[in-house]
Structures are given as structure tokens and as C-alpha cells.
């Protein structure tokens, strides 16, 4: 990492937005960086394994990541991630609509000289 200067830790929420959707017991969260310049570092750090290991009690199945390079987006498809799904879960948010903010709550490391993106 030498030559890149110091790194700082930011919440993904500072540099990206996200949306959650559900199909049965599968949740998907798409993640979009505000600044295309942040795409490479998010892609490198926000791996499927990272997401899976962040919430082991919730994400019971596999996590697969798809990339939309031209739009600077990542799509996480999480099987067995909704405690049964909208008609089975006893959770208050049985769709997992708020799962997007579980992903945005994760930290990423970025060079000190890159600031968070301006508001949309």
C-alpha cells in the first residue's frame, strides 16, 4: 500500500447508495457509488464473501455478486436471507426492505485525499 498515502475508514453509506428487493426467501441489494472514481475500491473491498461474513446470523445461504461496470453498480443476491420470506418471516420488516442499510453500514477504506461524494 506504500505510495498511496494514508487510508481512512468510511461507512459505505458516505460514498454509495443502495436498494433492496425480495423474491421469496432471496434478498438482493444493488449498490451504486455516487462518484465513479470510487467504484474500483468498492468493488475490491465489498466482495460477496465480505457481505456474507458480516451478517452470518441473517445470511444463511450463498451470496453472489454481479457487476454492472458501465453504471458502476454491484448487485448482491443473497439466498435464504429473509428468515423465510415475506409470507413466512416473523420479522417486522419481512420484505427485508431495510437490508440495503445493512450493506451501507459496512466500512470501506479509502485514500485520505478522497472525500465523500456530494449529496445527490
Amino acid at each position, binding site marked *: 500500500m506504500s505510495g498511496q498515502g494514508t487510508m481512512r475508514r468510511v461507512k459505505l*453509506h458516505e460514498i454509495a*447508495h*443502495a*436498494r433492496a*428487493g*425480495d*423474491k*421469496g*426467501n*432471496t434478498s*438482493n441489494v*444493488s449498490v*451504486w457509488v455516487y462518484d465513479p472514481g470510487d467504484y474500483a475500491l468498492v468493488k475490491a473491498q465489498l466482495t460477496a464473501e465480505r457481505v456474507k461474513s458480516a*451478517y452470518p*446470523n*441473517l445470511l444463511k445461504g450463498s451470496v*453472489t455478486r*454481479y457487476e*454492472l461496470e*458501465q*453504471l458502476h*453498480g454491484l*448487485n448482491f*443476491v443473497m439466498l435464504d436471507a429473509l*428468515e423465510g*420470506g*415475506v*409470507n*413466512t418471516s*416473523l*420479522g*417486522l*420488516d*419481512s*420484505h427485508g*426492505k*431495510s437490508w440495503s442499510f*445493512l450493506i451501507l453500514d459496512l466500512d470501506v477504506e479509502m485514500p485520505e485525499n478522497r472525500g465523500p461524494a456530494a*449529496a*445527490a
Partner: protein
Amino acid sequence: MLRLGCGAGFSSDRLGPAIDLAEKGRLDYLVFETIGERTLAFGHRDRKLDPKRGYNPQLAQRMRGVLKATKANGTRIVTNMGVANVPDAARVVIEVARELGLKGLKVAAVLGDEVTDLLTPETRLFDYHDRKISEVGLPLAGANVYLGIDAILPALETGADVVITGRVSDPSLFLSPIVHTYGWRRDDWAALGRGTLVGHLMECGMQITGGYYADPGKKDVPRLADCGYPIAEVQPDGSAVITKLDDAGGMVTPRTVKEQLLYEVHDPKRYLTPDVTADFSAVQLVDEGRDRVRVANGSGTARPDTLKVTVGFDGGYLGEAGVSYAGPNSAARATLAADILRDRLGRHSEIARNMRVDLIGLNALHATAHGVRQNAEDVRVRVAMRTADRSACETMLWEVEAMLCCGPAGGGGYRGQITPSVVTHSALIERERVRPSVEVLVA
């Protein structure tokens, strides 16, 4: 150019902005999409309670709101508000038309999505580790196949003012008027993929015009309270501009479009519908400014051989009850209340087996992911359970309500409810076995 509007993106979506679109949208078609896995289950539940029900509960109100304007403006309506009872839904539309003096208004009902009789106890559920229907251990409530444009196009060809369906794939509600207008071949997969992209972007209504999007300070949305529904201007090649009424709140930007692009999408190269395997992986978005985003480069490959079926099971009852604590030490009092409830309710085996306890304000929505977090002001204890035994739900509600007098200090705001519950799973069925049909009614 074809102008499509979306007047509902889910069962309980707002009506006012749909009336605005009907009156001012200069639309060729106004689409109301109101079915999800949850609301289809509710439709079966409602029809079970009353055989005349089971369609969208807001159907009559929506029709009263828009029918005069759509008829006057030559805008045709396409909607899946038939949910689990299409014939009675079509009759409701006819009744409203007569009430409004719209004599001669024509309604085409698309039938044949209910396929309960085509399933057997041996049918496999692909979303349930390929187990058989017989292994679910719950009574079958009803099964609906996702119909596509093959079922909807004949209804459009009748010239009907209103086309009403049950379960069809959501994008097909939009793709069918596009194909009907431009006469695309049914195996022009690239074009069908582009049209499906338009349908997918539109199907959730305001989720592309600023709804389900705002995050103050990060993603601000102008006049979200008056957010407008989307309009798609579709070209003969299937490319489109997504926009909204000028005077409506909300916004259409590449970011709102991106979030919707992958909503409920898994592999962007393979978005399966009854009509096509749509490919969103190379989509390009161009910001034309002033709430106009051009969408291009959708594509597609051959449609799947099988159709998806949502299989509903009678899930017994869902009981939910809660009580709140506020002010100093509220978290500790709520936690004590939860401990007492686990203790008291735990002595009843049917409840103990099926129960979940949350502390809203401390850990509810993300409880499974995170565990408990501190520092809330108001904390609500919530107990939920699903069981075939209604009396177990009643016992649970009683115990939660009892916290008012024999729980921690200052507990208030008890609410409890028991609702019939339907559990859903998914199966596949060979396309040839499904026989949709159209029935026309005239006011």
C-alpha cells in the same frame, strides 16, 4: 411514439397522482400493477372469507377516480387488480362504469392464471429445496401461474377500454401494449428484452420517480409528498425516455433509474419472464435533464420453456402484539418486559415454538443481523407468532396486554391483532399446460 403511465406500483399505492396522470398525462395506456407475493396471498385469504372478494380492495375507488378521464382521453387501462378473483373484479369495473354513466365501456378479463388443479402433492417447490407440496405440511390455498403477453394481447385486440388480469408477470403489463402497438414478432428477443426493460422500470410506480429513494443529506428528493408516477415514452425500437408530469413532485435521474434497474433482479443478464429472458447487463442511461432519462441497450434471449407458479398455503394465523416504554430507563424496562413475556409465554408450548420477540427501537428490523443496540428513547416490545391454533394467538395477545398492569413501570400503547396468514412457495409448470382465455363485458 407510445406514452405509457404507471398508476400503481403495489397494492396500496396512492390514488391522487394516478388521477393526475389520467387527466394530464396524454397517455395511450395507464397501467396499475398491484400484485406481489404478499398481496396475492391476501387475495386468496379474502376470497376464502368471501367468495365475491379476492380482487384488489381499492379497485372500485381507483376506477371511480380515473375512468371518466381515461375514457375521455382515449387512454386504455391495463391492470392486474383482478388478483385472485378476476371475474368479480371485471364486474366491479362494469358497475363503476355504469355508475359514472360510461355506457358501452368495454372490459376484457384475462382468465386462466389460477392453476391449482394442475398441481399435485408431488409437485416440486424450487424455492423450498425442491421439496414436494405434500412435504410443506399446510393445506393448499391456491396456485397462480405468471401469464405473459400471449395471454394479454388477445384482450387488447378486443379493443377493450380496460384489460383486467390476475397474476401476470409485472413487466408484461407494459410490454403487451408496446407489442400490440408496434407489432413486434413474438420471437424478436432483443426487442422483447428492451420492452421488458421499460416494463421493469415502470412496474413499481414511484420507485423510479423518487419513492423508496430519499435519504436526507445524501439523496434529497424535491416535493416527495407530491411525488408523481412515471411516464415512459417508448419508441418503435423499444428504447424509451422515463419521465413524469412537469408539475408533479419527485424526480427522474440516472440514480433513481439505476436503483430501480436492479430492483428484485438477480443475474442482470438473465431476468426471466414468461415473454423473454431479458438482458439488462449492458443498459445505458443518458440524462437528458429536466426529469428525463433515456434508457437504451436492453436486450434479450429466448423465453424460458417453463412458467413460474406461486403456490399459496393456508398458514394459519399471524398474531402480533406490542406495548411501549418511554423516558428514563425505558430500554431496561422494555427488556424486562420482554424477559417476562418470554417466561410467561414460554410455558405454553404452541406459543413458545412459534414466537419471536423484538425490541423496536433497540433491535427489531436488524435484530437477526446485529443483536441488541443501546440508547433508544422509546422502546416497543413486539411479539409475533404464526400458528394454525387461533387460541394460541389469543393467549399471546392477552399476555402482552397484561403487561399494562403486571409488567414493568410505565408500559402503554398496547395494540394486538390476529390476521389469517398465507405462506407462499414457487414451482414451475410446462407452458403448454396453461390455457389462458379472455372474456369481454360491456357496461
